């Protein structure tokens, strides 16, 4: 069985020192090892931006695609090979601005994929513009007078879109994040995980200290029941979306792949391609 070190490669990330994304990288590596995966069995598909580079920093099959499109690529890959563990990852711009449409539909489709949003509430790689997660009034290069738009609440969006696994973590809490990603990998369905991953260079408001002061763990909420969708939604709203932990999980609904007529347990890429002459003749005869 592979150790977390075997999921490391020798590439030095181009992230700034102190970037929250380092913890996400480590948590994915640890969670992969903890769930008994080998590097060959894992694929990480990522978007574009600082966070998008993550697929290149893990020793696994990696695809660094197009801005906002990590989820459809990951879903296509999963359909081709459902035996592969597929993790998609990207920033808040990737998943909640340019790729929001895909995020919502991937959630309701519910394929067995783990999706991690590295949420820093700013555009980092393009050097500091507002993000869909930036708060109203947040000043950036593109909003010099402060953002006039409301921040998008990712977990509420996921819940209302029919998510079967909704969780949130924070880069300072590697142990909790590793556990959540592990749970996400094990979950038979789409796991939506938002991670507060501070940008130390461009976001001087939502800093490590700021998150530490504002987040609330569901562990600390008395009688919290993560199978209760209404409770999940109301606690999220009460806490302004700042909850961490597994916020909601529906274990009753199985993943999309299990509901596709004719779809086998064995990977689609292992199936025979060639039709027999008899099958061919039957198909052609439909048109006579």
């Amino acid at each position, binding site marked *: 069985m592979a150790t977390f070190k075997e999921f490391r*490669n*020798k*590439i030095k990330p181009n992230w700034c020192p102190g970037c929250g994304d380092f913890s996400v990288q480590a948590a994915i590596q640890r969670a992969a090892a903890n769930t008994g995966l080998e*590097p*060959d*069995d894992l*694929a990480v*598909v990522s978007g*574009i931006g600082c966070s998008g*580079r993550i*697929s*290149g920093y893990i*020793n*696994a*099959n*990696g*695809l*660094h*695609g*197009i801005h906002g*499109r990590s*989820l*459809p*690529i*990951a*879903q*296509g*890959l*999963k*359909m*081709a*090979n459902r*035996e*592969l563990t597929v993790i998609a990852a990207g920033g808040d711009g990737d998943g909640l601005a340019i790729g929001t*449409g*895909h995020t*919502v*539909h991937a959630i309701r*489709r519910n394929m067995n994929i783990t999706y991690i949003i590295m949420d820093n509430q700013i555009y980092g790689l393009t050097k500091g513009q507002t993000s869909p997660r930036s708060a109203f009034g947040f000043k950036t290069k593109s909003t010099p007078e402060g953002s006039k738009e409301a921040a998008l609440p990712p977990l509420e969006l996921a819940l209302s879109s029919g998510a079967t696994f909704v969780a949130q973590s924070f880069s300072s809490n590697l142990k909790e994040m590793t556990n959540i990603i592990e749970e996400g990998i094990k979950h038979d369905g789409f796991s939506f995980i938002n991670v507060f991953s501070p940008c130390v260079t461009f976001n001087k408001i939502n800093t490590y200290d700021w998150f530490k002061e504002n987040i609330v763990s569901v562990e600390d909420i008395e009688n919290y029941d993560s199978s209760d969708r209404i409770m999940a939604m109301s606690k999220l709203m009460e806490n302004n979306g700042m909850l961490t932990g597994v916020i909601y999980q529906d274990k009753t609904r199985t993943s999309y792949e299990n509901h*596709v*007529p*004719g*779809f*086998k347990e064995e*990977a*689609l*890429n292992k*199936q025979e*391609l*060639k*039709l027999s*002459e008899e099958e*061919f*003749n039957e*198909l*052609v005869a439909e*048109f*006579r």
Partner: protein
Amino acid sequence: MISQLSWKIGGQQGEGLESTDRIFSTALNRLGYYLYGYRHFSSRIKGGHTNNKIRISKKPIRSISDDLDILVAFDQETIDLNAHELCDGGVIVADAKFSPKVPEGIKARLFAVPFTGIAEELGTSLMKNMVATGASAALLDLPIDIIKEVIKEEFGRKGTAIVDKNIEAVSRGAEFIKDETGGPLPELQIEPADGQRRLFMIGNDAIGLGALVAGCRFMPAYPITPASEVMEYLIKRLPKYNGTVIQTEDEIAAITMAIGANYGGVRSLTASAGPGLSLMMEGIGLAGMTETPVVIVDTQRGGPSTGLPTKQEQSDLNAVIYGTHGEIPKIVLAPSTIEECFYDTVEAFNLAEIYQCPVIVVTDLQLSLGKQTAENLDFENIEINRGKIVSEIDPREDGKLFKRYEITEDGISPRAIPGTKNGIYHVTGVEHDEEGRPSEAADNRQKMMDKRLRKMENIQVTNPILVDAPHETPDLLIVGMGSTGGTIDEARSRLDKDGISSNHVTVRLMHPFPTEEIKPYIEKAKKVVVVENNATGQLASLIKLNVGYAEKIANHLKYDGNPFLPSDIHETCKELK
């Protein structure tokens, strides 16, 4: 007796025209006639004038006709809009309910048949289309048994009572016509056909079948006219072969999901039309840059923007050839017949995997949706070639990846499917090195760019052009693509009678352009006429760019939403000669 005739049925969309057309044409197909269908329809579900036209012939035909012999009308609008197409001695068969009138100046015989009246006597006015089917069959003096057989297949699932009622409606319609005409009309008597059951299908069916036979097991797509039939064909048949279709949230998801599946080792395609193609451009770029095979079908319709969604056009040529930013390897095939829709789709999957690049199969609305007779498809001609896929990979020293983008002489690198032991590599749309790692080094950039584009230098494609060149130095060379080939050939036989000699080249490989193949035919022709359904002459521009001879190349363009008629091409060619 005549050897061919044209029949058209028209009314409001949703009146059952489609099933009349289907039953009537299926019966004719079983009698051994060659058929060529054309659908005139609007972008709405119910209401609005719509009509289906079928050309019926004893000999092979691949074009709509200039005129019309029989017009079946469910309303006066159908007569007013279409009667001008009727040849002298043509026949209008119309529902007596609306008291049909023949417009002034039209020399046609009118038979007012109580379509609705008979249907209502039988219990429901819905069956008026079956009365019309019977009336049509009687005009051609078709054996009624063959219609009955098709009706049994069409309605069998609904029970014998329904089948019997529909057969009764057909019989009553036929009897009414026989009483009115007092026997078959000599000018509509078509020579008997050979009784051989040929294939009768639309181009989109042939593409779907081609994909299935090529081993395509996954299709993500977004509905759009005139491409949706490809996904509808596959969703019904893929589950038996363990595959599936996903209706995605948009065409961006469709192309990127198809790329993901191909990366995962499953042959996958998507199909769309202009608006979807525009959304797919970034995905096409990713496939080109990451050397991931993917097949995209573009069924052209009237553009730009939403354009003419249900009309004929061939104006996406520039988009499919040049589309996406930057420079990538890409192959564009343009089938020109139903049979080619099938074989080209199979070939597209092979080319995509051999050359590891996007392959676009471009059709047009008439080829995609016009139901036609096709020759038998040959199992022996089907080959699956997956290109350079490696399954055994030696372990490497720590930190090294599989060289997915190894620089090779032909530019094609061995490909490992994710999950292959020791097969880990990186894939990125960023410029990368041989292992797929991002690299901005100038030297690497040039090597990689050259490697990708080198793949296009020796592309082997079956029949890049089709040639019919009976003349050494013809007066005219007519060049076309897609569905126009049959119409061009009909125009040529008329030109022959005028004493104008012509050759015909159909361009099938749009990119990389088959310059060397076309050149000799351009050189030898006194004049070249490029026939295309667009406003700017995109194919003509391609020929001028790649082959030259601009001074002798003329355009014959049509962009009013309708396919060319043989007379359009005949007249223009006579003038241009």
